[in-house]
């Protein structure tokens, strides 16, 4: 179903805490029925964005539109949005049933309908039979589920989830990632998920919005953001990367470590200073004669499914390589990569220019 109805839009939203700019010109739109993730380090403003959307804080400047209506100054209790809070924030004085029924009772719904809905939603999250348990008697994973149930039982059009999986241990967390994703697809509700964990965001999202310092750095599908990061921050934050300074000689040619390489990027000024990204898994180890670059190996770690190799070139740039085999001769090793593996980033390019340049030049080079 290619129904792309916009459900939420933020236009030039700013939020200040005293002198501190927590949100700096935030713009984005969310479509109905998709899974979005806000990804960024701690303190980048993710929770603040969620709160301007849920109404727990109000934007100082800009507009929040929900279903095309301006809700910028509407209080939280009047918004058709529900939140799964960072540490669940379940009501400790109520049992599971009453926690989940909380929102429905406020709507003055008939008791029989409340019962039906709560029982149904507890079944969805596989917590049927736990109605009379107190919150303190539940495990972290169970509390997590109740928090989700308490929100989705209200049938919000948009569900906000703030670091909802962060408190769970690794195994449960991966299981919940699958469950959340399938729940979202079954319910057809738009999910706006906040996390500082890039793997989580890459695994679950239709679209990722990368945040830093109160600004959205880049938004796009997980593959786009991974393959074509807009700047140093995004390249570094999402996955491991090798980032070296270079010069764009001309379209499709970039120079670094004293050599010129063929690449897939274009649309920059000749001899413009740039940064070049090369992902560790895109590098092949070969002989010094066949290698495009020659490096010295500093260390190797066996990671189970690959070897993690740290090395440096003659300019002193560090190179991280994921190789299938270990390296015997550590003095001189050749590195090879395809032109498509190189990704060139301009300094201070904004997202609109970046997207425009990419779409303009991508047709010609058959980039994968």
């Amino acid at each position, binding site marked *: 179903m290619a129904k792309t109805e916009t459900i939420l839009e933020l236009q030039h939203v700013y939020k200040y805490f005293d002198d501190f700019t927590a949100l700096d010109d935030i713009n984005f739109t969310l479509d109905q029925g998709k899974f979005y993730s806000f990804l960024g380090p701690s303190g980048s403003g993710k929770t603040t964005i969620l709160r301007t959307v849920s109404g727990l804080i109000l934007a100082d400047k800009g507009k929040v539109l929900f279903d095309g209506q301006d809700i910028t100054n509407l209080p939280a209790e009047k918004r058709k*949005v529900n939140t799964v*809070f960072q540490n669940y*924030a379940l009501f400790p004085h109520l049992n599971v049933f009453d926690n989940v029924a909380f929102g429905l009772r406020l709507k003055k719904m008939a008791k029989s309908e409340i019962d039906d809905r709560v029982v149904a939603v507890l079944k969805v999250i596989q917590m049927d039979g736990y109605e009379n348990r107190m919150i303190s008697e539940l495990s972290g994973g169970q509390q997590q589920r109740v928090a989700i149930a308490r929100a989705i039982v209200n049938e919000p059009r948009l569900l906000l989830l703030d670091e909802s999986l962060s408190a769970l241990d690794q195994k449960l967390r991966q299981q919940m990632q699958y469950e959340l994703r399938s729940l979202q697809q079954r319910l057809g509700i738009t999910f706006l998920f906040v996390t500082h964990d890039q793997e989580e965001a890459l695994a679950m999202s239709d679209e990722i919005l990368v945040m830093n310092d109160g600004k959205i750095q880049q938004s796009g599908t997980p593959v786009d953001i991974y393959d074509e990061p807009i700047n140093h921050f995004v390249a570094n934050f999402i996955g491991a990367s090798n980032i070296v300074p270079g010069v764009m000689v001309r379209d499709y040619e970039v120079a670094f470590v004293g050599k010129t390489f063929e690449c897939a990027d274009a649309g920059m000024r000749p001899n413009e200073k740039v940064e070049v990204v090369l992902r560790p898994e895109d590098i092949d180890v070969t002989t010094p004669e066949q290698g495009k670059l020659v490096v010295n190996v500093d260390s190797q770690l066996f990671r189970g499914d690959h070897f993690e190799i740290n090395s440096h070139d003659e300019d002193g740039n560090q190179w991280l390589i994921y190789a299938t085999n270990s390296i015997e001769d550590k003095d001189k090793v050749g590195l090879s990569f395809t032109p498509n593996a190189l990704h060139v980033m301009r300094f201070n390019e904004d997202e609109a220019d970046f997207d425009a340049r990419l779409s303009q030049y991508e047709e010609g080079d058959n980039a994968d």
Partner: protein
Amino acid sequence: MKKVTTLTKTNRLPYFSLYFLWIGLFVIAPVALIVYQSFFGIDHSLTLNNYRTYLSSSVYLRMTFNSFWFAFLITALTLAISYPTAYFLTKLEHRQLWILLIILPTWINLLLKAYAFIGIFSQSGSVNNFLTFIGVGPQQLLFTNTSFILVAAYIQIPFMILPIYNSLVDIDPAIINASHDLGANNFQTLWRVIFPMSINGVRSGVQAVFIPSLSLFMITRLIGGNKVITLGTAIEEHFMTTMNWGMGSTIGVVLIIIMFITMALTAGGRKGKAKS
């Protein structure tokens, strides 16, 4: 494992014995003395007459009822003033300073405070001056039930505010946010989340106010003008005036029993198992 337990046991022993010594000397012994004393008549003979008198005399029963009734009124008034105040305090900046200001009056001697109120409520006191100024004219304020309840409530307020305040600041703000997020307005959040979550503070406050209010005697005398005879005034009377220590102790025993009943009634489970 064994080593650790034996070690801590021996380490704690001195503290425990100090604790038991304290409890024994200042809690068990006085109570035991009162119980013992209550079985003696005014002529120092061993008897159950004190209890018989207490249970059969309408005077004592009315006194008991009075004590209950006034303690209830004082507690209700104190709670009605303290809960909003405590709630308001949690919203303020410099909360520690405000709390200190609430605690401060408890450091002043009760007698001094009572005399201060006598000054304020007297015929030529500031309240009557004000009433005269606005044209109402001077009123009899001292030695009325109203002034007794007002002053008693004034004195008890800090002991109600503190436990309620503590239970209110313990509430995670995220839980209040969750309530709003689920559609509750301020009043609904107060009624459905904040009040139930602070109920333990209310219970402690009610205990701290109701039980002492049962046996007030100084304020009943100085402010209430001894019009209301409560169990507290009766005890004082028996010990200081009629020298009937046996009867005084009997009323003391009754008070202790009432205290335990009050404690049991207001205790309540930590997590009340709500039903769906």
